[in-house]
Each structure stands twice: as structure tokens, then as C-alpha cells.
């Protein structure tokens, strides 16, 4: 189990116990509410993960390395930004990959663009995000993050270039 999972389970279980000690009825109500919203949202999420699975079969770490190499230049930056926006990869795979790319020969702006969009821009999540908030909100958040990533790439290129 990852550190993340441990933190979140600890929190959820601890608070549930405290809550149940203080007020059992309220805890039960909370439990039912949580389950209900979970069941409502699952149909949105499951097809999404089928799509993510397909993406990950095609876009593998070695495929990404081949795109973002040292000599990839401006095209590499654009590829980094777009692959990062579309793909979905756990940070514990992504950052070591970034480290490897940096060690094998620079490419700082490309790697920065890839990592930042990977974390903050989620094109695959767009459908789910629109359903929770609105299309406009999903668009706004993703665009802001993409602009942020472009600024990061620019500054990194100046400093490390």
C-alpha cells in the first residue's frame, strides 16, 4: 500500500471511530450519504478508466522517453506538454522517469512541461470534471494549468537552457 493510501485510510478510519463514539446515528447517516454519492458517481468513472487503460497501453514510459530526448528541442516541448496533458500516470512512475531523462542528457524544459501537465492538466478527466462542476469550470481549470505549464517551460528554458 502506498503512503497516500495509508494516510487516507488512517484519516477515514480514525475519524469514523471518533464520530461513532460521539454520535452513532449521525455516523450511520454519514456512512449512508457517502455510499450514495459513491454509487451515483461510479457510472461516470468506470468507462473513463477503460479509456485510461487503453492510453497507458500505447503511451508507455519508454515511448515517452523517446519523445522527450535531449535533441527533441521545441517539438519535444510541445510533445511533452501534450503527452502530459493527455496521459495519466502515477507520480511514483512519472518522477523517476523525469529524473532518468534529466540524467541521460538535460532536456529540462521538455521534462518540466511533461511533469507539470501530467499533474495538473487532465484531458481524460474532462468528462468527469464537467459532470461535477461544469464544462466551463473544467475548461478553465485545465487551461489555467496549461498556461502555468507553458510559463514553467519558458522559465526553465531560460535558467537551464
Amino acid at each position, binding site marked *: 500500500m502506498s*503512503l497516500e493510501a495509508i494516510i487516507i485510510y488512517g484519516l477515514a478510519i480514525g475519524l469514523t471511530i471518533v464520530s461513532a463514539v460521539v454520535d452513532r446515528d449521525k455516523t450511520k447517516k454519514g456512512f449512508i450519504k457517502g455510499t450514495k*454519492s459513491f454509487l451515483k458517481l461510479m457510472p461516470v468513472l468506470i468507462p473513463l478508466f477503460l479509456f485510461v487503460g487503453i492510453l497507458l497501453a500505447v503511451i508507455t514510459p519508454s515511448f515517452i522517453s523517446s519523445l522527450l530526448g535531449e535533441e527533441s528541442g521545441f517539438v519535444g516541448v510541445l510533445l511533452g506538454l501534450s503527452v502530459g496533458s493527455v496521459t495519466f500516470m502515477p507520480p511514483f512512475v512519472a518522477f523517476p522517469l523525469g529524473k532518468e531523462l534529466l540524467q541521460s542528457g538535460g532536456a529540462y524544459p521538455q521534462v518540466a512541461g511533461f511533469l507539470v501537465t501530467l499533474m495538473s492538466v487532465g484531458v481524460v478527466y474532462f468528462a468527469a470534471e464537467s459532470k461535477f462542476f461544469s464544462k466551463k469550470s473544467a475548461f478553465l481549470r485545465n487551461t*489555467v494549468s496549461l498556461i502555468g505549464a507553458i510559463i514553467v517551460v519558458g522559465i526553465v528554458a531560460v535558467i537551464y537552457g
Partner: protein
Amino acid sequence: MIKFIRNNKFLVISLLLLAIMTGVDISLTYTALENTRDQLLDMLLIVLPIFLLIGLFDVWVERDTVIRLMGQSSGLKGMALAFFLGAFSAGPTIAAFPLAMVMLKKGARYSNVLFFLMVWSSLKLPIVFFQVTQLGFEFAMLINAIMLLVFIVAALISEKFYTRSELDAFEEKAEELS
């Protein structure tokens, strides 16, 4: 039929892609399905306790409290709280959506919720620590400082993009989904 396709775009596109992949190389299809299974299990693992937390939040935290701390006139305090909630978190961004939704439902201000989501996506502390160990302090902090600045500016001006009724609609939608 057309309605079904429109409502299940992801499912239909995915099935089409799977069919194409099977034609090209069936081992790709297997990999894709295995990935789907792994990702789904990962997601469920992290999302289940989050829904438990959402339920507890819903029954214990009063609407007035959320309005006072993160509502329309919460100002800098509201933003600071949104930052801390996002930074002291764990899990993929998709796990943050339902939490953000319950905040909206309880009367939190949209700009604060958006800020929370953006901080969660990029600046979660467990990930930042890991990032530092992998990429080095300087490179990691440069990236994070720039993103934080962009997010702050975005949160401050975000509501200019919406009309009052669009902003109210967030709360109604959240009410409906939870």
C-alpha cells in the same frame, strides 16, 4: 442509439479503440484491459475512504461554518484554508472532485474551491517531497513556486468569467449529485 452514443462517448470510443487494437496486435488489447483493471483498483482503493470522509463531512460540518471559513466573504482566510486542505492531501485529482463538490454544496466560494482543486492537483505535500527527492530541490521548487503563483492569480480572477447565476448553479448541481 444516437442518444446512447452521446451519453456514453467514452465507452463507445474505448470499445472502438479496443477493436482496432485487437486487429493490430491482440497483446495490446490485453495490456489495455490489464491497465484498466489496475487503474480501477487503484482508484477504488483511494476513493472509498474519501467517500467515507465526504459522508462524515456532510453530517458533521455545519453549512454556516463552511460559509464563514470558505464562503463569499472569507477573503484571504478562505484561500489559505483551501491551500492547506489541498496541500495536506493524498490521492489523484479525481478523488478531489467529490470533495470539492461537497464544499460547494455547503456554501464554499467557487474561487476557493477551484484553488483547492488546483493545489491538490499539483502541490500535494507527499508528492512535493517525492518530487524533491527525484528532481532535486531547486528544479522542483522552481516548478512549484511558478505553479502556485499562477494558481493564486487564477483563483483571484476566476469568478470574473462567470455570471452570478452560473456560480449559483455549482451549488445546485452539487446538491443534486450528493
